[in-house]
């Protein structure tokens, strides 16, 4: 028994490596298999107090536009903004106070949806959210929120000569959510 215990102890580093390796490798593999290339997914970034990302993603995935694999919903955190992890976003939900600062990342919209839309230098950059999707996101009551599109999104149709306009369809769905 003593010898068995000694042998286990002398090999304990192998067991620890296996356990750590299992955690790291499978987490990495799951990240790979659950993700999709930017051309196959729509990413919606919420700069709100909070967002029920998986619940909202599940609703948006119900009618994923043709040719897409998935819709991701993420909350814009400080980390995202600092390290540029929001590069993959197609749609932003942004508070009015940040609209001007964010305008350089956004694409001007071809038309207004309502009088309350965000207009910067005579161009429409965000559609008024008007409480849409409030069952999934918590908004700051002191702010007005807008739905905007990233100028690098490959799903904006004629707005930036993309092959598809899936982001517009997803946006339409977000705007219709209670």
């Amino acid at each position: 028994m003593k010898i068995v215990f000694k042998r286990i102890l002398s090999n304990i580093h192998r067991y620890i490596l296996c356990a750590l390796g299992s955690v790291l490798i499978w987490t990495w593999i799951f990240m790979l298999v659950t993700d999709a290339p930017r051309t196959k997914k729509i990413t919606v970034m919420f700069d709100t107090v909070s967002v029920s990302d998986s619940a909202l993603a599940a609703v948006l995935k119900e009618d994923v536009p043709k040719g897409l694999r998935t819709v991701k919903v993420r909350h814009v955190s400080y980390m995202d903004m600092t390290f540029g992890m929001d590069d993959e976003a197609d749609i932003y939900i942004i508070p009015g106070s940040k609209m001007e600062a964010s305008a350089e990342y956004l694409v001007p919209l071809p038309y207004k949806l309502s009088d309350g839309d965000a207009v910067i230098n005579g161009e429409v950059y965000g559609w008024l959210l008007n409480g849409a999707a409030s069952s999934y996101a918590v908004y700051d009551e002191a702010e007005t929120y807008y739905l905007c599109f990233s100028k690098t999104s490959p799903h904006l149709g004629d707005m930036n000569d993309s092959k598809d306009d899936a982001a517009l369809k997803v946006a339409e769905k977000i705007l219709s959510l209670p």
Partner: protein
Amino acid sequence: METRIIELYSAGEAADLKKKRIVWNAVSFLVLAITLSVCAVFCASAYRTETFEKLPYAIAASIAGSFVYLTLRIFVVSDIKAASDHVDAILKGEAETVTGRFTLTKERLFIKKGVAMTKVGVSGQERISSLQIYDKKKKLFDAEKAVSVKVVFGFITAYEVEA
């Protein structure tokens, strides 16, 4: 006086050990293959649902499987390999005969690759004071009745008893 020689090692034993080694190697790799297959199923489920729901199960399966694999390698496969290498070396070695009175001691030692040996005391022999016998062979060795032993590299491989 008539004597008979009792061999402790045989070519059949070496062949059996080789077979055992192949079987346990296969078993350990089968454990690894099953573990990977189970994890692949969880991955496929993650691909379908696009969630991390099954990640804890995949990690648990991977840890359990790799622990079983490691334990088999450390405690079974490496022991069989060490025993097989030892038996092969003994069978290839050149034997010399040692006569005297033999006593099986309780002193154990481990040679290369952790093969356990028991020391055998020799009296009435000026040149050698002790030999070793493979732990798994000591039940077959009747030290009191032995009048001489065959030795390869200091390990007792056969002994002679009065008939």
